[in-house]
C-alpha cells in the first residue's frame, strides 16, 4: 500500500488522502472477507499425492488391505497393472467402484500410475491362514507347481514364474493375495466376466478348472510365505507354457 506523505504542505489534503486510502483498504478487506476462501497453494507435485484415491483401499504403498478384495499392487509388473487399469476404464473388468474412478483418465496417466505401483517395495502382508484341509492344500500345490497333464492344465509356475512373482512386463505375481480374491478372479475369468483384448490364455486354463480346483489353488497360493525376492522374473526369461498373446498389447 502506498505511504501517505505527511510532509505535504496541505495537511488537510493529506488527511483526506489518508482517509480515502484507509477506506479503499477497508473495502479491500471487506471484499476479501466476502470473497470465497481460496488457496493459491498447490498440492505436492508427486504421483503419491495424485493417487490417494487408489491408496485409500490398496494401502499407502499398494501393499493391499485386510479387505479380501483390495489386492496388493506393489511390485506387480507395470505392464500388467497398466492393462488392468485400461480394462477397468473400458469395462473389460467389472468392478463399479474401479470402473467409476478410472472412466475419464487417459492412457499416459494410467501408465504413470502403473509404473508407480510397480516400483513400490513394501513387505508382504500377513494373510489369514486358509481354513481348508491338508488334502485341499496338497491339490492346490500340485496344480500350481505341476499342473494336470491329463486335462491340459499347465502349472501356474509355468507362466507366472518359478517363484510365482510374475514375469515382466505383464504376467502378474500371485503372492500376497487373499484366497478369496484369487478365486474370484479365476471364477470371473472362467465365466468370461474378466476378459482381455487379445487371446485370453487364462480363460483357456480357467475353463479346465473345477470349483474345487479353484478353491484349492487359491488357498495354497495364499498360504505361501513372502518370497525371498519379490521382483517379477525378467522379460523373456521363461519359455511360457501356452503360446498365446499373454500381453494385452495395445
Amino acid at each position, binding site marked *: 500500500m502506498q505511504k501517505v506523505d505527511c510532509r505535504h504542505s496541505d495537511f488537510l489534503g493529506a488527511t483526506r488522502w489518508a482517509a480515502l486510502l484507509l477506506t479503499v483498504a477497508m473495502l479491500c478487506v471487506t471484499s476479501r472477507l466476502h470473497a470465497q476462501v481460496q488457496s493459491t497453494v498447490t*498440492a505436492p507435485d508427486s504421483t503419491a499425492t495424485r493417487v490417494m484415491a487408489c491408496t485409500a483401499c490398496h494401502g499407502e504403498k499398494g501393499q493391499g488391505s485386510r479387505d479380501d478384495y483390495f489386492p496388493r499392487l506393489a511390485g506387480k509388473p507395470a505392464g500388467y497393472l497398466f492393462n488392468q487399469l485400461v480394462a477397468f476404464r473400458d469395462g473389460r473388468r467389472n468392478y463399479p467402484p474401479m*470402473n467409476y474412478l478410472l472412466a475419464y483418465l487417459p492412457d499416459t496417466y494410467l501408465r504413470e500410475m502403473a509404473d508407480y505401483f510397480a516400483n513400490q517395495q513394501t513387505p508382504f502382508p500377513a494373510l489369514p491362514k486358509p481354513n481348508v484341509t491338508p488334502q485341499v492344500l496338497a491339490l492346490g500345490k500340485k496344480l500350481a507347481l505341476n499342473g494336470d497333464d491329463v486335462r491340459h492344465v499347465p502349472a501356474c509356475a509355468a507362466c507366472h514364474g518359478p517363484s510365482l512373482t510374475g514375469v515382466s512386463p505383464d504376467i502378474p505375481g500371485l503372492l500376497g493375495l487373499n484366497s478369496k480374491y484369487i478365486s474370484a478372479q479365476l471364477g470371473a475369468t472362467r465365466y468370461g466376466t474378466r476378459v482381455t483384448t487379445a487371446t485370453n490364455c487364462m480363460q483357456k486354463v480357467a475353463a479346465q478348472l473345477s470349483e474345487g480346483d479353484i478353491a484349492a489353488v487359491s488357498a495354497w497360493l495364499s498360504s505361501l510365505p513372502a518370497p525371498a525376492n519379490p521382483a517379477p522374473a525378467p522379460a523373456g526369461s521363461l519359455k511360457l507354457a501356452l503360446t498365446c498373446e499373454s500381453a494385452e498389447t495395445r
Partner: protein
Amino acid sequence: MLCLVPGLFALASLGHGQDLSVIAQGQYLARAGDCVACHSNPGDKPFGGRRPMATPFGTLYSPNISSDPATGIGAWSSDEFYTMMHTGRTRSGELLYPAMPYAAYTKVTRADSDAIFAYLKSVPPVHQQNRDQDLRFPYNNRSLLTGWRTLYFKEGEYKPDPSKSSDWNRGAYLVEGLGHCSMCHTAINALGGSSESSAYQGGLIPMQEWYAPSLTSNREAGLGDWTIEDISDLLQAGVSKRGAVYGPMAEVVYNSLQYLSDADIHAMAVYLKDLPSTGETAAPTPAEAQDKLRLFPLGKKIYTVQCAMCHGTNGEGKGWDFPPLAGNQSIQMTSSVNPIRMVLNGGFPPGTTRNPRPYGMPPFAQELSDEEVAAVVTYIRTAWQNHGTAIEAKDVNALRSAPLN
C-alpha cells in the same frame, strides 16, 4: 507422416469435394455435441452405437452413426441428416425419442450440420446392427411423442440476439445447441420434458443420481460469483479454483469440452455467466438446524483427521488440485447428493489436455459408516459460513447403491 497417409487416401476416396477443413470442422463440432458419449460403448470403436441408456421409461440403445452403409448412416444424404438434427425425425420419418437432444440440436445451422455429417461419413465404418429399444408400455409407442413434442419441442435454428455481443451469441449457440447443457441442468419432469420456466436451475439427473447444479446467476447455487476465468477453467480443464467436475460432467469435459478452442470456451462462459438469476434457496428449518447441532461435532472430528490434510483446516483447498469446500456451491445446494457421493465414492476429475494428471479424491464408503458420512457432509455443508443444511444417515444409505457406471 505414415499415420497421415491412410487418412489422406480416405479423404481422396470421398470424392464429393469435401476437403480436410470441412471434416476437421465437423470433428470439432461433433465433439462440441459430444456425439461419441452416447453413440459408443467405452473401449469400442467410436460411433457404433448400442450404448444402453437407462431412463425412467425403460432402456434406450443408441443407434450406429458410423459410416457403415448397412448399419450406420453411410447411405444417408446430408439433407436427411439435417432433417434428423433439425426435426427429430429419422430417415424413415419415425419420431426420435428425446434422449437424442434434438430439442437442442434443432438450433444447429445447416452448414454445421453438413460438416458433422461429412466428419461422420469419414470415420471408419462399424458394422453393427442397432438394438431394439426396451421401453415399457405405453412409452414403447412412438406416436405418443407427438404430444411430448407439442409441449417441449420448438423447431428452429439459433437466432442471434443483436443486442448482445458476438461472444454472447456464440456462447448461446454452443450452450443451447450442440452443448445440449439443458438436458441435465434443467430439471426433467414426470413427462421427461424440461420446462422453459425452470431453465438451467439445476436438477437431479434421473437414474444416474447425480445433481446437475444450477447455472443461473443465483449466488447460492449458480455461477453468480464465479469469474469468467473460473468458468472457462472448469469447462476446459475440468478443474478450477472454485471446484472440479466429477461424474457425468467429467464425461462431458473428457469427451467434449476439453477439445473446444479457448475462444469458444470463453464465449460459453460469457453466456453462462449472463444467465438470469432465478430460484431462491429456502432457509434451514428448525429441525435441520437441530440436526446440525447433533452431527456437527462428530463431523468436525472426522474432517480434521480425514479431510483437512488436503482441503485445509478452513476448507480453503489447494488451488486447482484439491477443490475448496468453503463457499463451494456444489456442496451447499439444497440437494446433498453430490457431496455424499463424493465422500462415498471419491473420484478423479477428467484427465484433460490442460490437466492431464488430475489428483484423485479417495473413496470413504469402505471406511466410514452412514452416520459418519452424514456427520462429515453436514460439517462441510454448514462450516465456514457455508449455507447448506444438515443431512441424515438415511440420505447416505440411499446413495450407497447409486449406480457408478
